[in-house]
């Protein structure tokens, strides 16, 4: 049965990868992801996994080796952060377009420059159009649960797309929490054996991976990729349901927290969702009804679930831990606002850009956001569409 352990986010990620037991792990150290690689290297050194570990000379080669390994027919994984993700960028797109079910923890860290090692979502948000499924984890338990489910989601025949499982650098990666760990056998049974359809190593049935694809076929291949991402919506829900049977913890595309009938809503992804939960509990004691809508899957974007969840609310604040320079607002805000555009009833949606470069965000900050929402509800007026929370101006 399950055991309960005190672990940091990176420790959980490494332990989960041990349980997944991938055929190949190619990785390069980068703060704050490094501990994952270190701990996993110990597992390899002690013979606890079947994994062939490829200690590459860069993240670009990490993703390149994963593409090679996954095409060969192996279950392949890597892990990275910020600049590491940026360096592998080109191959991140290729992994998705070759429809390779690679699973990669991304420990969210601010993208340079200036160089900064702390949390924000500029790294993974920048990769939002790369064709990878993105699952954001609120805490250590979710890292564990998301990584296990990611293997199934990625390898589902109607999906075949790579998955990033993100969690906040230092806040979660280096924060110790209580985590429920399943038995190895339970995890391995849940993820099952990997049956690649066209492995390179099937010498008797040779295939060509990565040919030149011009105007006569490229568009159709991209169209299929769009469809696969759409299919992932149902698959994520389905796998979430199956995982609930196994673990007792259920997962959906989004999560709601707080009074179901509350009409003040904050939308957040990552560890801040936990902070919002804390704020909501305090507000409840103060007699204010509030709600959190947590984005678990940002890609594919669960627009129907979000619309449904916001159908009766009065006002919405979207928390973005990254800026989209020159855009109307942050990436989550843009998607949410666009999803609500064709709703019959118009709900005011405001954006809060916060926490860039690891700037702390606390319960008091979130309560301020709810106070703003109360004002908007009262007056019907939005003073600032995009707000910058916790910055000196």
């Amino acid at each position, binding site marked *: 049965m399950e055991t309960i352990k005190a672990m940091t986010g990176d420790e959980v990620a490494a332990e989960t990868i041990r349980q997944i037991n991938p*055929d*190949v792990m*190619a990785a390069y150290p980068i703060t704050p992801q490094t501990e994952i690689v270190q701990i996993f290297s110990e597992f390899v050194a002690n013979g606890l996994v*079947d*994994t*062939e570990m*490829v*200690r*590459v*000379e*860069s993240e*670009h*080669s990490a993703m*390149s*080796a*994963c*593409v*090679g*390994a*996954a*095409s*060969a*027919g*192996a279950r*392949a994984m890597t892990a990275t952060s910020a600049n590491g993700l940026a360096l592998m960028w*080109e*191959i991140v797109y*290729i992994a998705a377009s070759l429809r390779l079910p690679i699973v990669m923890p991304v420990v969210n860290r601010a993208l340079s420059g200036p160089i900064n090692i702390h949390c924000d979502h500029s790294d993974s948000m920048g990769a939002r159009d790369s064709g990878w499924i993105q699952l954001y984890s609120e805490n250590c338990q979710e890292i564990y649960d998301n990584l296990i489910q990611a293997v199934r989601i990625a390898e589902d025949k109607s999906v075949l797309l790579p998955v990033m499982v993100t969690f906040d650098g230092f806040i979660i990666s280096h924060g110790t929490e209580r985590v429920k760990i399943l038995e190895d056998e339970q995890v391995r049974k849940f993820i099952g054996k990997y049956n690649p359809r066209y492995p*390179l*190593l*099937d*010498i008797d049935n*040779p*295939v*060509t*991976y*990565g*040919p*030149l*694809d*011009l105007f006569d*076929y490229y568009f159709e291949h991209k169209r299929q990729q769009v469809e696969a991402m759409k299919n992932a919506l149902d698959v994520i829900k389905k796998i979430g349901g199956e995982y609930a049977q196994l673990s007792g913890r259920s997962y959906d595309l989004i999560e709601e927290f707080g009074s179901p009938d509350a009409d003040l809503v904050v939308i957040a992804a990552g560890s801040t969702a936990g902070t919002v939960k804390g704020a909501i509990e305090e507000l409840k004691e103060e007699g204010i009804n509030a709600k959190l809508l947590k984005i678990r899957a940002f890609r594919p974007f669960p627009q129907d679930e979000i619309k449904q969840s916001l159908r009766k609310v009065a006002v919405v604040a979207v928390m973005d831990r990254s800026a989209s320079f020159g855009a109307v607002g942050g990436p989550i805000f843009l998607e949410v606002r666009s999803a609500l555009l064709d709703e019959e009833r118009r709900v005011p949606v405001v954006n809060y850009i916060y926490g860039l470069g690891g700037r702390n965000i606390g319960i008091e900050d979130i309560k301020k956001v709810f106070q703003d929402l109360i004002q908007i509800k009262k007056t019907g007026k939005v003073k600032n569409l995009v707000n910058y929370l916790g910055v000196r101006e």
Partner: protein
Amino acid sequence: MPSLKDLSKKEELFSSGHRLCPGCGAPIIVRQVLLAVDTPVVVGCATGCLEVGTTIYPFTAWKMPWIHNAFENAASTISGVEAAYRSLKRQGKIDKEIRFIAFGGDGGTYDIGIQSLSGALERGHRFLYICYDNEAYMNTGIQRSSASPRGASTTTSPAGKAIPEGKTEYRKDLTQIVAAHNIPYVAQASPGYYNDLMKKVQKALSANGPSFINILSPCPRGWRYPADQTIEIAKLAVLSGFWPLYEIENGKYRITYKPRKKKPLKDWLESQGRFRHLLKEENKKVVEELQKNIEEKEKKLLALAGENA
């Protein structure tokens, strides 16, 4: 080595009908390499002429499992394939013996792919990397690379009034850089000497670790010579001392072919339009320096091979 007659009966793993230029050195090299292979192979390819000319979707010229990922990562990509093979073999999921070969041009190997190559060599993956070196970025239209020889006129190092010699820098010696990784087998070859080339491929594939062969790949378009002269040009490179044929087997140097009668470098320069400007009076000194450079390099190589000049 099997005779030419036997080789002509062997099934070719690289099909005709591809779209590389007439006279291109790359497909000749690929055929020679693959004819030397007796074990099943998986082939990787860097972006470049060879890749775009042989795999326009939905067609492929490759009859074995083949993968192209990007420009700079043929080595790291094949290292991932090889790692998967080792993992699955150890787990008893695969039982066949398979070898791994990556092809990259000089742009994808000397320049943008050198880090990926260096990393894969250091990690000790068992694979053969073949650089088909046509001495410039031919796929994008003959731009200079670090493999372009001094004096070559390319579209980004044209010979002009202010810079009459074309490319002013000597080329990078990648074979020596690779040798510094102390891998089991390193060699230089030319498609003008197919026997030598194929023997090297067989030695490379039997090495228990990484191996590398740098193969000069004449390019009629970029080097400016008639397309039916490719093999002659590939021979002239060796006969003039421009492209010595040698190997380094477990650290031991051996010159694999010594021309009985050497040709002057000038013959090599005269054979190609990319060097035409060097024959002008104003570039006389450059040609002298190029000749001297070749002789110095030859002396060094002879010393490394333990032979007297």
